[in-house]
């Protein structure tokens, strides 16, 4: 039991959110368009449904051998002249990344849930670095000093007028509150542009990793991750160990199912990164750091994942693709957004809070907030049974975590 939170303030936060009409409106619009987009995407590519079943099997197999896959991936990455690490704990991961980064550096970051999980940005800032979130939503959140409210759309709760006000302040130029969204996007693009090219380090996560080749698959639409992982001389990737699958073809399937259930027929970009940038064009001498990064580091974070894998009913939380679909189906999320959650949101967030974060009070708050209505399970491509996990977790909370709950 590392940290404790308090139910009183949690509940107050939840109720304030539930009475926030603007939040409600933003969410209800998002839910509508998400549902119709997913429907279209699945109608257009109906094979995705069967592929999701295949992916569930891939994940079931992979979760039982995360360690082995991580070692295999590290070997492959090192063969490609990158460097791989297994971080047992959050502190270890932070230390590895902080050592690689150093201090007084300019860092550009793509969105990474795992980074959020370990508080990476804050840690690097504490170490005296200047860190920029480059995903537009994350950038807004960072500058607002707030926290993400959705795993795919972190700033889902912020209306455009607030963005205009915020940008005027940080960019030192007046941006009218009634500006077009396109103008807001252009302003962010201009502001961040030279950060990418002056950055010392680029940081990303990955949606899935193929162990056989050490290849990271990174799905995105904005193009910020391509820049953040391509322009700076050093690329550091932080990946949860549950993201590993054996083969390249497995990783492709995971990716396709992920973006489809994340409401895209096809995303604008999928980057496959397996090593540092290199060229042999001058006298066939392989030289690293051509146009892309000279250094490539991948940190595989355990941080409680192997522990979680030992709970028969809770291990399914590790199959999650982070498509975000369940959040749009959760009736509580629909009125509170990420206030119902911890590092990860809604019902499944309780499992992460309990076993990964070991924040028991928080876990209890979330676990007893879940309605166990089961609509998330209906949506989930991995058929993760959130109500089943919630009831199991309540049992652990109420009756204690005995050894027979684990394998």
């Amino acid at each position, binding site marked *: 039991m590392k940290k404790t939170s308090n139910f009183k303030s949690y509940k107050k936060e*939840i*109720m304030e959110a539930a009475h926030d009409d603007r939040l409600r409106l933003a969410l209800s619009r998002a839910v509508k368009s998400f549902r119709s987009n997913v429907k279209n995407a699945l109608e257009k590519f109906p094979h995705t449904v069967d592929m999701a079943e295949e992916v569930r099997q891939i994940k079931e197999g992979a979760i039982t051998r995360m360690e082995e896959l991580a070692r295999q991936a590290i070997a492959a990455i090192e063969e490609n002249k990158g460097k791989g690490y297994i971080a047992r704990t959050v502190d270890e991961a932070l230390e590895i990344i902080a050592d690689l980064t150093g201090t007084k550096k300019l860092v550009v970051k793509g969105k990474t849930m795992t980074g959020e999980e370990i508080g990476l940005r804050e840690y690097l800032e504490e170490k005296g670095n200047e860190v920029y979130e480059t995903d537009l939503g994350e950038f807004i959140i960072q500058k607002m000093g707030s926290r993400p409210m959705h795993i795919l759309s972190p700033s889902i709760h912020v209306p455009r007028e607030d963005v205009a006000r915020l940008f005027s302040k940080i960019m030192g130029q007046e941006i009218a509150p009634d500006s077009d969204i396109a103008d807001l996007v252009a302003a962010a693009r201009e502001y961040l542009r030279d950060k990418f090219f002056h950055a010392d380090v680029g940081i990303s996560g990955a949606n899935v990793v193929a162990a056989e080749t050490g290849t990271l698959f990174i799905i995105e639409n904005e193009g910020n991750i391509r820049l953040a992982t391509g322009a700076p001389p050093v690329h550091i990737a932080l990946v949860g160990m549950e993201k590993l699958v054996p083969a390249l073809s497995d990783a492709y399937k995971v990716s396709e199912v992920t973006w489809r259930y994340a409401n895209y027929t096809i995303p604008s970009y999928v980057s496959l990164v397996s090593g540092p940038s290199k060229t042999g064009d001058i006298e066939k001498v392989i030289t690293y750091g051509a146009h892309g990064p000279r250094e490539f580091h991948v940190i595989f974070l355990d941080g409680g994942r192997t522990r979680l894998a030992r709970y028969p009913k809770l291990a399914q939380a590790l199959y999650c693709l982070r498509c975000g679909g369940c959040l749009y189906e959760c*009736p509580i999320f629909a009125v509170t957004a990420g206030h119902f959650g911890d590092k990860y949101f809604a019902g499944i967030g309780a499992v992460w809070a309990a076993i990964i974060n070991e924040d028991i009070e928080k876990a209890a708050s979330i676990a007893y907030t879940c309605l166990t209505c089961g609509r998330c399970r209906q949506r989930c491509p991995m058929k993760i049974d959130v109500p089943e996990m919630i009831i199991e977790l309540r049992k652990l909370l*109420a009756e*204690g975590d005995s050894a027979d709950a684990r394998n």
Partner: protein
Amino acid sequence: MVGISTDIIYAAAMDSELVPPGLTYLADNIISRQNILGVTKEQSARWAQNLDLPRQAETIFFAGCGYQFSAQLEILMSLARGIDKSVIGAELPMRFARFQKKLGLNLPGIYSSVLSRGSETEVKPLEAAVNVLRNLGIQPGYLAEEEPCCGAPLNHAGLQTKFADNARQAYDKLKSFGVKQVIGIVPYCTHAISSLFPLYVDGYDLEVRHFLEVVAEKIPSYKLRFPRKVKVTYHDPCQLVRYMSLVEEPRRILGAIEGIELVEPDWTRGEWATCCGGGGGFETVFPELSQVLAVNRASELLETGAEIIVTHCPGCIMQLKDGLRELKIDGVEVLDLSQVVATAMET
């Protein structure tokens, strides 16, 4: 776990401060009195007084708590919501049971005064269901004050050890009365007896069916007519639709009734129905938030233009009525499916 008495585990759980008191309140009542409100058993079987149901039969009707106590639960909830919204607000519903004592509220007293008023409203769906079954040629028995509690809220609170104990006792009791088949009606009870009991009971061999299944199977050969032409929408209770896969049955039943036009929300129907906000005792833990969700669900259903909202769960009925009340909607009724079928059989 061997060697540790389940009472010790239970006592520790109730003290753990992690289980919300709203749920421990229900749990305590189940353990001490075999019903969620802790009223006496005699009070609870009253709805069936004039029905002359046999006390012993191979096939029994399992009434459960929800419908029987809906009037009392409504009172409990309006109290809880009042407290939840008041200045003292935030932490209280979590501490509801204790707070109730501090305030000197005598809940059992309030409940029995409702009961003695002989309020009609809460018994209707149960009576209607029995009448429907009889009209379909089924003569179920009813254990009345001997009916055990399914204990579902224990499971929801995380008190599995107690739930398992209760399941075994309840099962033995049913068996001791010679029960072979159970027709359940409250979604939580029916799911608990049919799907959760077998996890804890050795040699389980009860045949459990939900009222909807029984009715849907027989209904096509009956002529049914609602007294007037109405637009009706159906709200799927989570337990029925996503735990017991009863999607098509209620629709087949409503479709067989002349005069009823079924109008449903575009998206949030069947497996995609939105929870009314009363899932698994949630309303006792987050009374106010639960009401926000009730209002949301009621609004979704109202968009269909229906004059009657039909559903099939005592919790959903309470929530949806509350939602309509908050929205200040008059003229839209919330009815249980059993009431609708019973009415259509009379005409």
